[in-house]
Each structure stands twice: as C-alpha cells, then as structure tokens.
C-alpha cells in the first residue's frame, strides 16, 4: 500500500513540473502539454484524496477535468494553428506584437 502522502507529493511534483514548464518552455505545443500535465497532476490528487476519504466526489471531478482538458486542448490547438498561419513559428518569444 502506498502511503497517502506519497501520492499527494507525487501530484504536487507533477503540478510543479507542469507549472515550471509553462514558465520556461518556448514551443507553444509544449506549453499546451505542460498545462495538461498540471491538470493531470491535480487529477492524481483528487483520486488519492477520494481513496483516502472513501468518497466518490473526487472521482467525479476526474471525469469532468478530463473533458474540460480535452475541450481546452482542442481550442488551444485551433489557436496555435491560427497563430502559425500568421507567423510561421511556434515559439512563444516570437509572439511579441503587443507589448506587455
């Protein structure tokens, strides 16, 4: 039996990897993947907590988060295709028309 804390720790690490990835990576497709990683890290902690508390609520979250992530990925992909049409590049630091 893996202790509950270990699963939580693993999910925190996955979340952190995704978070750092969003902040440092340049390729926008990799950015999308990092966001998915963050969401899946959270999913893991939902499952772990649901198991520990013996409640189904966390499992239901996982279903919904998966569909939300799919919808987000589809919209994100569409945006990236549009972006690529305009600039022939998938690197985030070349997206600099609007100064910020």
């Amino acid at each position: 039996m893996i202790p509950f804390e270990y699963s939580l720790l693993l999910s925190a690490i996955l979340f952190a990897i995704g978070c750092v990835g969003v902040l440092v990576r340049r390729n926008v497709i990799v950015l999308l993947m990092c966001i998915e990683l963050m969401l899946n890290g959270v999913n893991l902690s939902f499952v772990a907590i649901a198991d520990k508390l013996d409640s189904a609520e966390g499992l239901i979250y996982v279903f919904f988060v998966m569909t939300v992530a799919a919808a987000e990925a589809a919209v994100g992909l569409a945006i990236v295709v549009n972006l690529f049409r305009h600039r022939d590049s998938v690197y985030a630091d070349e997206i600099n028309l609007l100064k910020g």
Partner: protein
Amino acid sequence: MDFQLADLKLIAPHIALLGTALLVLMVEVFGHGRRRPEATWISLLGIGIAAAATGMSCHENRLGFSGMLAADGYSAFCNMIILIVGALTILVSSNYLKDERHEHGEYHALILLSMTGMMFMASATHLLLMFLALETMSIAIYALAGFFRTKEGVESCFKYFLLGAFSSAFMLYGIALIYGATGTTQIHGIMEQFTQIKGLASSPMALSGIALLIVGFAFKVAAFPFHGWTPDVYQGAPTSVTAFMATGVKAAAFAAFFRIFFVAFPATSPVWSQALWLLAVATMTMGNFAALAQRDVKRMLAYSSIAHAGYLLVGVVTATAAAGTGMLFYLLSYAFMNIGAFACVIMLGRRGADSTNLDDYAGVGFKYPLLAAALTLFMFSMAGIPPTAGFIGKFLIFKAAIGKEFYWLAVIGVLNSAASVYFYLRVIVYMYFRERPEAAPEGLRSGPAITVATVVAAAAVLILGLAPGFVVRMAEAAMSTF
C-alpha cells in the same frame, strides 16, 4: 442523490440561453445564402426569455440539484447584470461585425454560451459546478478574443488562452486541497466542516487550498500581480469582445469569488482578508498608475479595469452584507459605463484600424458633440465623479469598508480614485481642447443598434447616479437571501 423535475425551474434562465445558442448555430449553418441579421434578433430574444425566467425563479430561494446551485436573490441579481452585459454587447457588435466583414452567427453563439457559464458561476454553490462554469465561460471567450483572426487578435487570444488555462489549473489544485482538508466541496458543507473540526482553520492543506483559489480568481479578475495579460489581451481583441470581457467576466468572477469566500470560508477570514487587503491595494494603485502613462485608449481602459478590480476587491475583503450590496451595485454600473465607453471607441474607429490613440480623439468634441458628451459621461462615471453611477458604487463599497473598520483601505481607495481622475479627464481634454487634424478621416461607424446601446448605457449611468435608491434596495434584498 435525488432528481427533481422542479429543480429544472432553477436553471430555466441557463437553459434558455443554451437553447438560444444552439439555435443560432443551427440557423447559421442551415439557413444559408442570406445575410443574417437574424442572429442578433434571436440572441436578443433568448436573452429576454432568460431575463423573464430569472424574474420567475428569483423567489425560489433554495438550493437545487443536491446543493449544486442556488437560485436566490443574489444569483438573480448577478444573472441580470450578466444578461444586461450580453444584450448590450450584442447590440454594440451588430454594426461593428458588419463593418469588419465578420458577421457570423458563431459570434453570437459564443457570447450566449459564455453567458451561460457566467450565470452558472454566479449561482454555483459547489466548487465542481463553479469550475465547470468558469471553464465554459473562459473557453468561449478564448475563441471570441481571436474572432477576427488578425495578427493582433490571434496573439491576444493565445495569451489569454495560455494564462487562462494556467490559472484554472491553479484554481483546480486549490479545489483539490480544500476537498482533501474538508472532505467536501459543497460550500455550505465546507463552512460546517470549518466550524465543527477544531484546528481545520489553521491546517496547512486548507490554507494553501484557499491561497490557490485566490490565485485562480486573481488571474480571472486581473488583480495584481496576476494582471500582466490584461492590457495586451484587451488591446488585441475585437473591441466589442473587450467590453464583454471587461464587464461580464468580472461580474461572474466576482460573484463567485464573493459567494465562496462569504459562505465557505468565514472561519479563516482573518488570514485571507489580510492577503486580499494587500492584493486590493496593490491592484488599484498599480492599475491607476500604469493607466497614467498610456496613450492608447484601449490600453488605458484595460489598466483602468485593473484598477476597478482593485475597488471591487475591497468589497470582497470587507465581506459583509453591506459590502456585497456595494459590489453588486458597482458591477452593474461598471457594466453600463464600460460597455458605453467601448461603444464610443468602436464608433470612432474604422474598418481594420481601431484608431485608439489619444491623438485620434483630438477635436472629436465639436465634430460629434453627442458622442463626445456620452464618452465624457462615461469617463466621469469611471473616475467616480458625482452625479454618476460610478460615484455611488465607490461610495457604497468604501462605506462598507469603513463600517468594518478597514479605514486605511478606504483612504487608499479614495486617494486612488482621485489620482485616476487625471487620465480619464485627459480623454475629455483631447476631445474638447485639441484641434482636429486636417487629415482626420470622416464619418462615424454608427448604426441604430449601437446608438441604442450607447443611449441606454448613458441613461443608466445617469439614473443610477441620480436615483440609486431603487437598485440599491434591490441589491440589499439580494444580499439578504444568502
């Protein structure tokens, strides 16, 4: 788990909007060959039905769907704000879309879908529903921000998408931690857990969950230090969508923010109210001072919207019924004044060129006196000068803050609104006291729908400023149903 047919009545407004969105989509693809002004009319009709349904369900005052959502006065008031925002946005867009050759029904469908999400956010009493509603709203708006597919539009769309998805992941993690600490994500259930279990209010898991929730909301309402995307996104998106984002998203996010923190976390309020205190002060100060330096009106309005998020945060920090009343009133008046201001910006632009530099506004005052008068009114209201709606809203929020002995917060807020007068008045100065350049293009991008929207917004700003009593009483009644 029990399902009751009667619960469907609680979500009748949401169903009406969703049905209209689907209808608009189907009309778009199956009614081919003709120009389609009907998308505008169908959407407005749907919004009207949703408003009627809201009016009918606002006295229900109960939870539905096993505690997932509440149909009370609070959600009814927020629904009304959102419906007003949506109706004004659709009116403002009709001519703009035609002028930019983007008259597609998808635009209306996306607006209606994101409004559905917003209304669910305002009535959600369960964090799962709140998250789903937030995503419904956001995903539709990501698509809207890039609707024109110009270089700037797509870029703004991408930035908004990336940071939006990033922030929802934070919020979701916060929900997971709160679930771990309390074992439930129904907000009344969370509140009971906090009162029953000793020491839960200081458990690291619960506190970090609350912190992550704050981060998620702060991204959505564009609060410091998570405001970085706002100016770029607001500038690059189609102007009508900017107006919708600035008012609708703010209304929905603040509605959910306030409900969750007011209902679920009063036990931990000493901790989060300090964090939010700092956030509120930093947000309004930063927004106002950055706005001082802007020469682009759309960017200036973006920073001003950050500052307004700061004032609204004062309401959340205070977290009393009076503060809620102030917040609701402020959100309503902000919807009118902001959409009105953006409508003026749209009318002054032309196809492919928004002309939002301050220099483009030189001499507008004598060329188009009515438009300039309306824009002046909206600027006065944003600056919080009486007798406009903006003044009453600020007054209510700061009064509530003083009532709970947040003196410094109120003082800083008042000082901030004094500083903001400078950049709002600068637009007016350019309009009335600068020569219009010879080469300035002729003509306004006007039409009956956008004129109606501007007149309604201007009238509402004046009425809410001169005779706020009725609406304030409605907001108080809405707060009393918690």
